[in-house]
C-alpha cells in the first residue's frame, strides 16, 4: 500500500481543517481557535498512537500569515497560559461514575439506529452536553443524569431497610414489626421527613419498643462497625453496566459486589444476561483495546450457517494498530 495510515490520517486532518476554515471565520471563532483545534487533535492522535511523530506535510498552502506550526514532538504548551487546559481526566471523571441504569435506553450497546443516527445520538448529545457547558463527557459516554436521577429512589428504599435493620430485637413476624417500627419512626422523629432519600444519618435510636429479630445478620454487627451510610446498598453500583455504556472500550462487566451488605434482599439476577464469558476472555487477553472494524457493507448473505459479506471503506483497529481497507471479504461460520 502506497500510503500508510498515518499519512491518510494527516490528510484527513488537513482536509477537515481547510474545509471548516470558512465556517470558523463566519462564526467568529477565528484562526487561533482553528489552529488550536488542529494542534490538539494531532497531539491526541500522537498520544493515542494513531499517527507517528514526524508529520510531513506536502507544501502547505497558507494564504494567511503562517501561524506558527507547533513542534509536535514536544508536549503541547497551549497558547499563552491564560488558562489551564484541563486534561481529559480532569474534565471527564473516571469511568465508574457514569454508568447508566440497565433500564435506561442507552441505545449504545450495539448499533441502535440508522446511519444518520449511527453513533449513539451524538448530535443530540453534543448539543445537550455542550450546551450546558458543564464538563460533560464526550457523547460516547452516557450522560450521567438518568442514573443520577434515580439515586434518590435507591436511597429511599434503603432508608426503610435501614430502619428495619436497626432493630435489635428478634421478633416472630419481623415483616409486620418492621413496618410498624418504620411507621412509628416516621411519626416519632420529624427529622425523618418524607422518607427523604437524602437522609443518610442513623435515625433516632429512641424507638418505642424493642422488637425481636430472628433473621439476618447478628444485630450487634452494626455496633461493631460504625454505620457508614447506605452507599453499598445501592442496587445500581457504579461500574456494573459499563458494557452498556460504550461498546468500544474494552471494559468487562464487573461482578456484582454488593452481596455482603444485603442479606435478606433477593438478588435481582440482573446481570444474568450479560456476556460474562466474552468479557472474561477480554480481560485476560486484551486489557486495553477492543478489536473493532468500522465499515460499510455491500452485501451480506448466508447459506445455512455460512455467512459471507463484502465490506468496503473500513477502518480496522486490531492489536492496537489501525488498518484501513478499501474492500474486504468476510467468511464466517456461525
Amino acid at each position, binding site marked *: 500500500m502506497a500510503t500508510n495510515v498515518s499519512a491518510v490520517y494527516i490528510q484527513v486532518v488537513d482536509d477537515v481543517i481547510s474545509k471548516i476554515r470558512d465556517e470558523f471565520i463566519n462564526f467568529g471563532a477565528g484562526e487561533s481557535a482553528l489552529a488550536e483545534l488542529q494542534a490538539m487533535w494531532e497531539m491526541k492522535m500522537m498520544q493515542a498512537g494513531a499517527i507517528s511523530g514526524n508529520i510531513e506535510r506536502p507544501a502547505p498552502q497558507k494564504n494567511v500569515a503562517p501561524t506558527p506550526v507547533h513542534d509536535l514532538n514536544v508536549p503541547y504548551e497551549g497558547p499563552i497560559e491564560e488558562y489551564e487546559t484541563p486534561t481529559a481526566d480532569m474534565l471527564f471523571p473516571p469511568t465508574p461514575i457514569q454508568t447508566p441504569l440497565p433500564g435506561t435506553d442507552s441505545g449504545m450497546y450495539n448499533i441502535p439506529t440508522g446511519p444518520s443516527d449511527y453513533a449513539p445520538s451524538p448530535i443530540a448529545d453534543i448539543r445537550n452536553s455542550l450546551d450546558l457547558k458543564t464538563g460533560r463527557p464526550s457523547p460516547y459516554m452516557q450522560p450521567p443524569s438518568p442514573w443520577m436521577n434515580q439515586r434518590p429512589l435507591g436511597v429511599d428504599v434503603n432508608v426503610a431497610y435501614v430502619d428495619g435493620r436497626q432493630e435489635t430485637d428478634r421478633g416472630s413476624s419481623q415483616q409486620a414489626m418492621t413496618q410498624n417500627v418504620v411507621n412509628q419512626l416516621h411519626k416519632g422523629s420529624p427529622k425523618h421527613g418524607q422518607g427523604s432519600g437524602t437522609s443518610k444519618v442513623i435515625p433516632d435510636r429512641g424507638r418505642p419498643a424493642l422488637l425481636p429479630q430472628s433473621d439476618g445478620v447478628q444485630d450487634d454487627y452494626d455496633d461493631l462497625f460504625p454505620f457508614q451510610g447506605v452507599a453499598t446498598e445501592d442496587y445500581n453500583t457504579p461500574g456494573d453496566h459499563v458494557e452498556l455504556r460504550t461498546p468500544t472500550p474494552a471494559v468487562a462487566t464487573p461482578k456484582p459486589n454488593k452481596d455482603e451488605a444485603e442479606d435478606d434482599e433477593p438478588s435481582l439476577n440482573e446481570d444474568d444476561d450479560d456476556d460474562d464469558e466474552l468479557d472474561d476472555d*477480554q480481560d485476560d487477553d486484551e486489557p486495553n483495546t477492543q478489536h473493532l*472494524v468500522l465499515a460499510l457493507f455491500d452485501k451480506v448473505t448466508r447459506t445455512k450457517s455460512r455467512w459471507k459479506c463484502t465490506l468496503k471503506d473500513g477502518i480496522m483497529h486490531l492489536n492496537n494498530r489501525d488498518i484501513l481497507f478499501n474492500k474486504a471479504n468476510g467468511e464466517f461460520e456461525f
Partner: protein
Amino acid sequence: MSTFELYRRSRIGMCLTETLDEMVTNERLSPDLAIQVLMQFDRSMTDALENQVKSKVSIKGHLHTYRFCDNVWTFILKDATFKSEELNEPVKRVKIVACDSKLLSQ
C-alpha cells in the same frame, strides 16, 4: 446532508471528539461549530477511505453474534484472522460494525 457517523468511533474520530468537547467546554468554540466540524470529519473520512486507500482484506472466523438493526450489521467474531498482502492478524474477538453503503447520500 446526512453523514455516516460511524467513523467517529475510530481513534481519529474519538480524538477529534475529545478535542472539540474540551474546546466547547472552555468556550473556545460554539457547540454548533463543533457539530459542523464533526460532520465535515465524517465527509472527509469517507472520502479519504474511498479514494486514498487501496487495500483489500479478507476476514475469516467464527461468527459468535450477528445483528441487523436499522440497516446496520453488527457481527462479533471469535478467533478471526485478518489477511491481506501485508497483514496476517489473528484476533480472539472482534466486533464488526457495518452501515449500508447504499444509503450513502450524495
